[in-house]
């Protein structure tokens, strides 16, 4: 491992942006153009009356790189605010996954049993398949997906992480 990798750390960054065309391309282009990595990125409009969206990006880098990422995001014209949830105090991270498992007989029953333990919900069911919905920390989703592999895992769709700080403060 190089020195840079050693002090590299994962950060969850939130940005409030004008929901205008091209804004996501601008953010993604910034990351690819400057060689920053994106572990996950989620975006949706969170304030329709003001047309503001919230982007949550999980990235990793040395403290200097993370500072750069925030400064570079902050100077994009349609970006209002940038927060680093990882360093700004305690926060909650969640991810949602839809997981399709196909099979019959014992494996099918087993998948349902495990789903129950993980508190996954069945949102679609046919004679030979289930679609489970599961919310939680990414590691929990990983664990569930791993357990489904031998039981007929067909498809996984994940949202990527959304995050919010704990307590009464806004971003």
């Amino acid at each position, binding site marked *: 491992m190089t020195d840079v990798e050693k002090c590299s750390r994962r950060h969850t960054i939130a940005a409030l942006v*004008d929901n205008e065309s091209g804004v996501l*391309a601008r953010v993604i*282009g910034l990351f690819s153009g400057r060689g920053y990595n994106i572990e996950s990125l989620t975006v949706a409009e969170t304030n329709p009356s003001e047309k503001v969206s919230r982007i949550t990006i999980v990235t990793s880098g040395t403290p200097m790189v993370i*500072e*750069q990422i925030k*400064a570079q995001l902050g100077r994009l*014209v349609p970006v209002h605010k940038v927060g680093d949830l990882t360093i700004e105090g305690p926060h909650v991270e969640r991810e949602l996954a839809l997981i399709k498992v196909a099979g019959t007989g014992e494996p099918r029953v087993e998948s349902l049993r495990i789903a129950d333990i993980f508190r996954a919900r069945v949102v679609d069911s046919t004679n030979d398949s289930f679609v489970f919905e599961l919310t939680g920390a990414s590691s929990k989703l990983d664990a569930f997906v791993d357990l489904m592999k031998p039981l007929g895992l067909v498809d996984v769709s994940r949202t990527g992480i959304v995050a919010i700080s704990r307590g009464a403060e806004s971003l």
Partner: protein
Amino acid sequence: MNGAEIIIRSLVDQGVEVIFGYPGGAVLPIYDAIFGQNKLRHILVRHEQGAVHAAEGYARSTGKVGAVLVTSGPGATNAVTGLTDALMDSIPIVCITGQVATHLIGNDAFQEADTTGITRPCTKHNYLVKSADDVARVVHEAFYVARSGRPGPVVIDMPKDVQLAKGDYVGPETVAHRTYQPRIQGEPSAIERAVKLIAGAKRPIFYTGGGVINAGPEASARLIEFARMTGVPVTNTLMGLGAFPGSDPQFVGMLGMHGTYEANKAMHDCDVMVCLGARFDDRITGRLDAFSPNSQKIHVDIDPSSINKNVSVDVPIIGDVGAVLGDMIEIWKRDGLKTDSQALKAWWGTIDEWRSIKCLSYDQDETTIKPQYAIERLYDLTKDRETFITTEVGQHQMWAAQFYKFETPNHWMTSGGLGTMGYGMPAAIGVQLAHPDALVVDIAGEASILMCIQELSTAAQYNLPIKVFVLNNEYMGMVRQWQELLHGGRYSESYSEALPDFVKLAEAFGVKGLRAERPDQVDGLIEEMVNTDGPVLADVRVDKVENCFPMIPSGSAHDDMILGPVDRAKREVTDAGKALV
């Protein structure tokens, strides 16, 4: 009004007097609107790259936003080099591009290009306008964005149907960007800390860049005032020349790869470095891990992303450098501060020793014109007039920076960040339009000048008396120099086997052509050039193999520079150094 008329009205209300452009199908309605008015002057360039460089020259020499109008597709793609240049050097530009009609976008229509997609990484911001009612707001917002904070180019992509549709006009006063509000005033406590550091310094230096020029003449005046109060030596980056008087004894010259020995040594040995509106780029710092190892660093910049990007600093101050300098001066006066005069005297003593090496000296004999000599003569014979200098890119550019002394800001335009060959002549055209009575000289290389030579036609059409001063060494000299130093003298493709006869070329464009081949012809050529009413192209035949020194080879530290040919013989550049540009 239709969308096209709204554009013209918005530009006029933004104070635009000159727009550089080139017509085409997708901007015909705008050209129609230009035809019916006389408030906005259109300058027809010969290539869209030239339009953007001309607007850059106009902007940089006036402090105003430069305006450009080009058609869709190839018009827009031709503008990309200029836009990138303006982004790298923080030049405010608004560039209007035509676009195919809204319903055709995405259909690979004739002359369609994804202009907002292509220009996203090379503009500060861009817009695709979808309704004529949005045109005025977008234009005003674009000017605000282009000039605010760290300036830069903004593209407005205008579909042809939007140009033709009727819409409502709103004036500039109604528009402010909702959220883009760059910070102007620096953090007071940080400024206090910075001033204390400066007062306590024993070997301080002011390292100032293009940000001081962008912050306006007031910022330069404050820099001079603060430098006088403190007695601190001043060095400028390539982009910052002119912010501090070039002939002033307190000026230690340009720093960086081809900066002076004294400037780079002072950067290396200082104990307090005050970086004002510069960005620690690789041409400045040399080898990063050996960059000014023992100094405390203060960095003032309007762009938070410039701070701690390459070099981590002790006192970051985000704000307009003019405003921050104003605050520093006030605190200095308020507290009756003084620098340690004993220490500064010793520091100046050291600097004077470095100076005594005379790192810029060269040998001028009687037969071959040294490029340095040509520029020194140009300086001597033009310094008493109002003169603006633009350059192309290469050795001549570095010699111009070393040998032409700039006393005031906004008189030096060069392509720093992108290093764009072809920049200088169109930039000179832009400067000349803004300053019709001034002398405007493009110090050029014979290779670079051919990259936008077509603009000579623009100069001829408007009888713009620009002077193109070509230092013709028949080589892409800077490439040849690197090949000599780093690649064993294998001059791969850097010699121009077929050059035009520049005098005849000038004449073919309807422009006066001059030539000098011997040192004793240089003064006469310059006199004739500057005393000619119209545009001139001068072919100055210089030493073909002169190298530009001093030089910090890529991958080396500031205190490890090559001073000249003799010094060079002792040097090996490492493979790691070779990998750097």
